[in-house]
């Protein structure tokens, strides 16, 4: 019988309920990064899961990996979790470099659930919950095509070139647009290194040199900065921003009409669900599909054509 | 002494375990010139550094103008009127001459804003007073020659209204002519009531301008007399702790058929030096004299391949003419460069390293550090290097001892031809004699030596052949037989 979701769980949008208290004490490790409101949102989901599972005989330890998002850091974190002999691990193995380590975890019989972003190359993880970055990109592409009526000019600002997640989102959209909407011209990509100030400058310059621009597609950090650039260039209504992650700081631009759409990942919910699944898997032998695609809800801004 | 300007009692100082000053007592009155003498490492620089607040003292008292005072830093000493011109020149090369003259406050007064016009005018006036009106106060100090920099240092002292002026070996890089100009200023200052502490290794100068002579040995005052009561021999005995005679050096004649080691035929660089021609034979000691700036350093650099040859040829028996310093050392040349601090020492490396470095360039493979240490030990004994041991970093040695280490570096590479640029710069009498003797012994064994010196007696005492440069031109090349100081100076001032 399922344990009803707590208030905290509901607040983060948690959807998976625990199947009861664990028969013997369980220790779960969660590994995630910090340094932005996105990760902060994931933290909330982890905290909610920890609180929800505490009375159910499961301790959730949150191993924070800091602000340096690299494969080595994740691998070192997983190594640490193995050393500390956790019963299960949930993590964000965003880089392909983590595949070997994740396979090692599974080979040692420790269940592993990935959330938010899995490596592009598939590992043997038991469950992966998340939005497929490439598909999300395609979704963004569809949205852009709809907004522009399949023609016009769009510019791309990406986070880090070479970051799998960013590249996948970029290519998901661009491949679709190039294939199905040949009348759309693409400018860029420009790399802003997730820096707001750089994204702002790039957006400004893009609008200067492309008076006929209609969309700026931002694959990672910087969508609110691009929106601010649109506002400051008095191009609201003419140029729209399509980006990711519906975070509080972006609300004013959704309302103002600069941000047309944000593809959200519901990081808190993903974190919560993955941890509870892990609990259910270990305590009750529950099984889940290897790939759980989280639907990418699109948060529309005021200026979007619906 | 009640009229003392400065009275120091029991000044003590140690560097780590090394006691350098053992209770030095020292007095000086206004309008007095006191010569402070002593062997290399006796503690002269250390003592005056304490007086001027550049080093903290471990013990003792200083009474300045009748009141006990502690100068915690140079600033407070400067404000009191103690101006110290250090052994190593201390101009800021990237600032202009006028800024250096008034460094620290630049005549800004309360406003804190520099009036460049006023500064330049005042600087011109000061430079004129020290007979250097030709120096443009607006140029960077780093672009001046050593001698000019020395003069700017003196002008700096004037700018500060010195009450006590400390000159630590001010003449070491000056020619007699320039030194004389300096003494004129010193006498003038003395007449205006300035007290002057004068450190030098040149006795003629000491007798020429000082009123009193204080001798330090191993950090203790061993002599303090009016200059009239001293003799050269007496001072040397005080300094070294024994009677010491300066042996007249015999200059072995060079056989006419001795093999030629190096022959220069009308060599010149791009416009500054040359043409110069000479032949250097086995066992010959060629002494090169000239005024500072005559191009002697450049000539040595040409010969060693450090400076590109623009004209003429250099011939060596084996046909090897080096084109850089590495090749020079490898082909049996050794160079002791001018400017010990900037061009000579490897400051934080050990003494053993500093000696072994050049020799090593000829060998390869795995080094035997034990051998290098014993190499150092050999030269320490031969040259009397005062040190704590082979591991001591060279920057902790006194200037003269550093010079000996660099000399040892040259000898350690067992060169065929030894090039020495001002080898006795800042070296005390006894060491000078040691170095002269070494040079002569090596020459007798067949080594050839080319040395540059600004000390005329040194050139005449040591060289078997004398060359004089004047503004880069060779104005004299003659065997050192019957040459007089006058002959050499005439050539040095010749407008070739």
């Amino acid at each position, binding site marked *: 019988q399922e344990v009803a979701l707590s208030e905290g769980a509901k607040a983060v949008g948690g959807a998976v309920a625990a199947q009861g208290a664990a028969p013997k004490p369980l220790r779960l490790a969660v590994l995630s990064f*910090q*340094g*932005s*409101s996105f*990760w*902060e949102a994931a933290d909330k989901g982890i905290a909610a899961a920890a609180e929800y599972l505490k009375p159910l005989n499961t301790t959730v330890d949150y191993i924070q990996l800091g*602000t340096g998002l690299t494969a080595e850091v994740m691998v070192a974190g997983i190594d640490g979790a193995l050393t500390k002999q956790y019963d299960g691990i949930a993590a964000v193995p965003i880089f392909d470099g983590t595949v070997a380590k994740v396979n090692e975890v599974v080979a040692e019989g420790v269940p592993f659930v990935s959330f938010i972003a899995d490596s592009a190359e598939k590992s043997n993880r038991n469950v992966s919950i998340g939005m497929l970055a490439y598909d999300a990109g395609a979704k963004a592409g569809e949205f852009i095509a709809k907004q522009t009526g399949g023609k016009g000019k769009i510019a791309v600002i*990406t986070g880090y*070139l070479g970051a799998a997640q960013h590249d996948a989102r970029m290519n998901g959209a661009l491949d679709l647009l190039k294939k199905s909407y040949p009348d759309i011209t693409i*400018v*860029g*990509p*420009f*790399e802003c*290194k*997730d*820096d*707001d*100030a750089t994204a*702002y*400058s*790039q957006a*400004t*310059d*893009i609008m*200067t*040199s492309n008076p006929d621009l209609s969309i700026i597609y931002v694959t990672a*950090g910087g969508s*609110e*900065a691009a929106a*601010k650039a649109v506002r*400051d260039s008095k191009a609201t209504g003419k140029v729209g921003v399509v980006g990711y992650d519906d975070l*509080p*700081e972006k609300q004013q631009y959704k309302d103002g009409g600069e941000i047309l759409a944000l593809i959200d990942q519901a990081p808190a919910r993903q974190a919560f669900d993955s941890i509870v699944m892990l609990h259910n898997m270990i305590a009750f032998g529950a099984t889940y599909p290897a790939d759980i695609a989280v639907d990418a809800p699109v948060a529309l801004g005021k200026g979007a054509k619906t | 002494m009640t009229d003392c300007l400065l009275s120091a009692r029991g000044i003590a100082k140690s560097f780590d375990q090394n006691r350098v000053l053992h209770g030095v007592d020292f007095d000086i009155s206004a309008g007095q010139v006191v010569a402070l003498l002593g062997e290399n490492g006796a503690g002269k620089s250390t003592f005056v550094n304490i007086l001027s607040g*550049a080093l903290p003292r471990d013990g003792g008292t200083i009474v300045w103008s009748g009141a006990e005072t502690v100068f915690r*830093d*140079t*600033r407070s000493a*400067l*404000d009191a009127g103690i101006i*110290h011109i*250090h052994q190593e020149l*201390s*101009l*800021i*090369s*990237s*600032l202009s001459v006028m*800024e250096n003259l008034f*460094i*620290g*406050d*630049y005549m*800004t007064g309360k406003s*804190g*804003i*520099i009036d*460049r016009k006023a500064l330049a005018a005042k600087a011109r006036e000061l430079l004129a007073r020290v007979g250097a009106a030709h120096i443009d106060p607006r140029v960077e100090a780093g672009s001046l020659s050593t001698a000019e920099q020395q003069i700017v240092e003196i002008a700096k002292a004037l700018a500060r209204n010195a009450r006590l002026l400390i000159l630590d070996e001010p003449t070491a890089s000056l020619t007699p002519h320039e030194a004389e100009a300096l003494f004129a200023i010193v006498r003038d200052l003395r007449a205006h009531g300035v007290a002057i502490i004068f450190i030098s290794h040149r006795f003629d100068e000491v007798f020429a301008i000082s009123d009193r002579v204080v001798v330090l040995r191993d950090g203790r005052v061993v002599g303090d007399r009016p200059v009239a009561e001293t003799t050269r021999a007496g001072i040397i005995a005080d300094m070294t702790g024994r009677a010491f005679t300066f042996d007249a050096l015999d200059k072995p004649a060079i056989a006419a058929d001795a093999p030629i080691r190096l022959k220069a035929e009308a060599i010149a660089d791009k416009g500054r030096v040359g043409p110069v021609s000479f032949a250097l034979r086995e066992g010959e000691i060629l002494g090169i004299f000239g005024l500072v700036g005559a191009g002697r350093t450049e000539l040595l650099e040409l010969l060693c391949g450090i400076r590109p040859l623009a004209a003429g040829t250099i011939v060596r028996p084996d046909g090897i003419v080096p084109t850089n310093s590495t090749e020079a050392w490898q082909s049996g040349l050794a160079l002791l460069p001018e400017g010990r601090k900037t061009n000579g020492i490897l400051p934080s490396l050990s003494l053993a390293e500093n000696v072994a470095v050049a020799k090593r360039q000829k060998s390869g493979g795995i080094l035997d550090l034990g051998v290098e240490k014993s190499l150092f030990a050999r030269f320490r004994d031969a040259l009397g290097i005062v040190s704590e041991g082979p591991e001591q970093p060279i920057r902790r040695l006194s200037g003269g001892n550093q010079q000996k280490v660099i000399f040892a570096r040259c000898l350690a590479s067992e060169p065929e031809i030894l090039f020495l640029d001002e080898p006795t710069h800042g070296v005390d009498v006894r060491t000078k004699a040691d170095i002269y003797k070494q040079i002569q012994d090596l020459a007798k064994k067949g080594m050839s030596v080319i040395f540059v010196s600004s000390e005329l007696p040194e050139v005449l005492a040591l060289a078997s052949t004398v060359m004089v440069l004047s503004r880069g031109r060779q104005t004299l090349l003659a065997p050192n037989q019957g040459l007089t100081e006058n002959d050499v100076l005439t050539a040095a001032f010749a407008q070739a």
Partner: protein
Amino acid sequence: MTAANVVRFVRTRREATVLAMLVLVFLGLTFASEFFLTGRNLSNVARQISVVGIVALGQALVIIAGGIDLSVGSVIGLSAVTGAIVSATTGMPSLGIAGAIGIGMAIGFANGVLITKLRINPFITTLGTLSIARGAALLITNGNPQRFDNWAAFLGYGKIGGLPVQFILLVALTIIVWLFATRTRWGRNVYAVGDNARAARLAGIDVARTRILVFTVSGSLAGLGGLLLGGMLTNANPNLGLGYELDVIAAVILGGVALSGGRGSIGGVVIGAALIGLLRNAFVLLNVSGYWQTITIGLVVILAVGADSLNRRSEED
């Protein structure tokens, strides 16, 4: 200036090579993009070089004094969020301005004290404060960007008479710092300390205070930089300024300041910042591929400094 004078200038002033390069890029862009020479774009470029330029002014003083300040990028982030939080919690934007500049000043001062009193090398000290300041910015915000849109933010995005306020600040500060460096006692002491700290001390200059001063100035200007960036985006992100230290140092060195200390002109620094800013603008205007942007920046930096070195090869060691 006659032609001979121009040649003399180019041969003797380190910043001349970079100025020549700047002119070249400027002319090249004028022909290559019809949008370049528009008032709107030029005003954008002016704004884009401002923060790097302002922070580089302080960095230049530090480097001239023989130091280096790696913490500026993190100080930008910390100041931005501090400014935003202070003005939001107190409701007084002016306090926000004071807070942003004040925290920068405090970190700069701390750098200076650590370096002079504890005698820690500037590189390592500021590498340490780089980490600490970034950590602190993240900690106080929990990683969340802070809304920053009161009148204080006007400094970041506003314009006066068509010119970005940021740029006006850059020009004003350049003049002030230039006057400071060339016409005041403290300014000249900065050069003396960087050229030969020992000789400066022996000449009675308070070396420690001079060093503390330059680090404090650098920190304060980085603080102002954070305020401007946060204001420009009306959003202070704790990650602002990440990696800026390298851009800033590159601008300073491009501008002809010697990393070994003692030499450099303030005007050159702004030229260096302008060159980097102009290149970034060019990348977007000319739609240069992302990978080539990285490569081009690297090449230009080496080229500019290399051309300058070749130009004056005779000098030194």
